[in-house]
């Protein structure tokens, strides 16, 4: 199995692709959403929620080890038969379109809110979708490298968020365990949704050149994401406190309003300026995965048709992203996207693995 450019990605690039798919716009409102349910224990919930991606990645790895050279579509069809296999892939693609359109929409809204208040939304959305198609068309190797480069840029940018720490009050983190078992469980369940993005591994597994390092790469990626998430949640709690946080739409961005630095008048603009470039990143990764699965599903030549299918996926994301009326509706819809993630990110690997155990011998021989 090779991609358009006849290439594979390294396990190092896989780390950055997974991190890139997870870390995006959601970091801006993650602290608010989780602390709403779990209060002061939000950071603990983020940590507990790590169990889900760890288990899922482990299962995907076990699954992939059984059929290392099969693409995602082939694997589905081999395990579930032609019809049900295709159906599962179609649901997967539909999920990606829905999920990414929400992310692209939120990004466009933030862009509009801060940088381009008068530009029509469809125009801003178009720029994001154009980036997705342009980069996706360059093939997996380029996507891997772009994720790698952007990760370092994003990390440098992330350091800006650490500046307000000095103004925080550590008592805001106390008391621990105040939300109780219920709140903690609900919060963790909610936090799991913020790890969405690793399901791309289902598609990419066969394209990684060293299969034995995939599990390790997945774990490192999860660790990086968790670390950054916890940092941002803790900083927000320190500076705003839980109740203060609920008032803000994007607490992580408001953080930068707290600090005053000479010469740079508005720090959050600098942050956004760099962050925007990364906005399309998770959409690029997932959009490519969807288009790739689609080529396999339709049995068409990848080299020739990848661009058209990317345009199709991009168009679908564009249209779905325009559907919700406003940002409030988008946040409501994101709850459903969360359910979609529970199905595709958590349930899919488990179902696939059970099926592989049941029909294992037969499928492996046919592969």
């Amino acid at each position, binding site marked *: 199995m090779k991609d358009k450019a006849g290439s594979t990605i390294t396990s190092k690039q896989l780390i950055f692709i997974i991190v890139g798919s997870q870390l995006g716009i959601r970091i801006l409102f993650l602290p608010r959403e989780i602390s709403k349910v779990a209060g002061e224990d939000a950071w603990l919930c983020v940590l507990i929620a790590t169990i889900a991606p760890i288990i899922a990645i482990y299962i995907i790895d076990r699954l992939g080890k059984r059929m290392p050279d099969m693409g995602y579509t082939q694997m589905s069809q081999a395990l579930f038969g032609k019809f049900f296999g295709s159906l599962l892939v179609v649901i997967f693609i539909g999920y990606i379109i829905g999920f990414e359109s929400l992310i692209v929409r939120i990004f466009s809204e933030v862009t509009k809110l801060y940088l381009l208040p008068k530009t029509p939304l469809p125009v801003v959305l178009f720029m994001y979708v154009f980036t997705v198609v342009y980069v996706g068309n360059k093939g997996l190797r380029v996507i891997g*490298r772009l994720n790698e480069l952007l990760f370092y840029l994003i990390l440098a940018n992330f350091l800006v968020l650490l500046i307000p720490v000095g103004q925080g009050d550590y008592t805001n983190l106390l008391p621990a365990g105040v939300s109780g078992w219920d709140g903690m469980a609900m919060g963790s369940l909610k936090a799991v949704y913020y790890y969405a993005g690793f399901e791309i591994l289902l598609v990419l597994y066969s394209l990684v050149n060293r299969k034995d390092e995939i599990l390790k790469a997945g774990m490192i990626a999860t660790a990086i994401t968790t670390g950054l998430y916890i940092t941002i949640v803790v900083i927000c709690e320190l500076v705003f406190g839980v109740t203060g946080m609920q008032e803000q739409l994007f607490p992580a961005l408001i953080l930068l309003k707290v600090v005053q630095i000479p010469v740079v008048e508005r720090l959050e*603009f600098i942050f956004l*300026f760099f962050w925007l470039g990364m906005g399309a990143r998770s959409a690029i990764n997932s959009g490519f995965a969807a288009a790739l699965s689609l080529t396999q599903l339709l049995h068409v030549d990848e080299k020739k048709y990848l661009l058209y299918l990317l345009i199709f996926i991009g168009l679908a994301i564009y249209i779905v992203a325009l559907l919700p009326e406003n940002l409030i509706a988008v946040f409501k819809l994101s709850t459903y996207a969360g359910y979609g993630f529970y199905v595709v990110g958590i349930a899919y690997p488990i179902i696939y693995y059970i099926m592989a155990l049941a029909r294992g011998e037969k499928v492996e021989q046919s592969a």
Partner: protein
Amino acid sequence: MKKAYRKAPKDEQAWKEEKQKIPDTKLPPALKDKMQMLQPFLQKGADIITRSFYLEGDPPISAVSIHLNKVIDDETLNQDILRPLMINWHKDSIQGLGAQNLIDAIYTTSITTSQISKRDTFASLVQTIYDGLTVLLFDGIEEVLVIDIHGGEFRAIDAPPAEQTMRGSREGFIERLDINLALVRRRLRDPNLVVVKTLVGKRTRTQVAILYIEDIADPNIVTEVKNRVDQMNLDGIVASGYIEQFIEDSPTSIFPQVFITERPDKLVAMLLEGRVAIIADNTPLSFAVPALFVQFIQAPEDYYEKTFFSSYIRVLRYISLLIAISLPALYIALLTYQPELIPYDLLISFARARANVPFPVIVEALIMEVIIQMVIEAGLRLPQQIGQTVGVVSGIILGQAAISAKLASPIVILIISISIICTYALPSASLVLTVRLVRLPIMLLASIFGLFGIAFGWVIIQAHLIGMESMGVPYFGPLAPMRYADLKDSFIRTFMKKMNQRPVSIPMQDRKRQGNDGKEPQQQ
């Protein structure tokens, strides 16, 4: 109709080639016959010089030398070829020798030049004459002697005008390939340095040399370069830029993909890192492939000066690259969309300066940008004295007049000037051209989408750079794919002693560069 038209030239081409083909027959022994065959060619070239003479003997052997005027070294021809043959001829030694032995005797005993060979077909005879070699024809002998005494007038070795350095060699390449190769050989006396010569261009038959160090360069890249040069099928190249455009990986990209230098010391450094070099005759430049993006921001002094200065200057160059591309765009974006980001006092002075200018910021900036680009273009080809006048007129009068005429604000002139200066702070002429071109779309994006437009433009540029390859080597390495080992020679340059391994970004066979394990690198 279009189709019919397309087909016709193909036949025509074949017909032409058939017509022009020189018959590849064996040469006849008699001098008279040979000259008769050559007659049509000799008639066409008024600068082909034939000189008849004869070798003393019993009977005397008549002979003719043919060469192109002023392409060869006349002195050598007279002293080392004609004089010994006509005057100091060892006629005793050739008595009773057959035709085959005769010619060997002539060149082993009488001709004192070193580059000499034999030809026996008519086509190769004609071709060698036009390649600028001297040909000796003898009566009664089928084979002819071909002597390479290239010479004539050419430019002396000069300091490289576009790549001056404070430290380091003052020698630059010149138009003669052989001299250029000698300049490289003098600096790199390694027996493993391979020089392969090929001819490019059906009509110009330009000599192109491909150089690489056998036990460092990656054989795949070497074959790839050779293939690409061999596949060039055109009537002629008059400068090496033709080769660059034929062998680069993505001709549609505006970024330079071949590293061009006119300094032999720089080329040797490239060869030592495992690159393959190409030098074409008649152009005082050389290429090195594969090229990486970071290379275009590095200058030879970076390695000649101490680490601290080189690193500092290198970081400055990266900053100037960023400024050159995005400063005008940033000005436009901030003034049009986010004036609140500019410190308050500065904003007031900006507004005052712009108060009298009737145009939007983008129009103002575009006017100045285009004018300055035209000034650069105008000054480029003028003689130096007039060029200075253009500089003064544009720099002092034009700028002042534009401000008084309220065509532009002083700020925009300042911004554009800074970006131009930063453009020319880049050490590579090919990157300068790219930056001049990239600035425009970023400015337009900034005027439509503000800061978001600039960010968008940079992401597209990044993705474009990452997707590019030079001879199959990732162009944006060592940044993406990230190679930690090579970072010590990208943004900064570490201490010479620490750079003990060759960069991984360029495929090579031998990683070790320095013997820091106690053994000295082998001395010659």
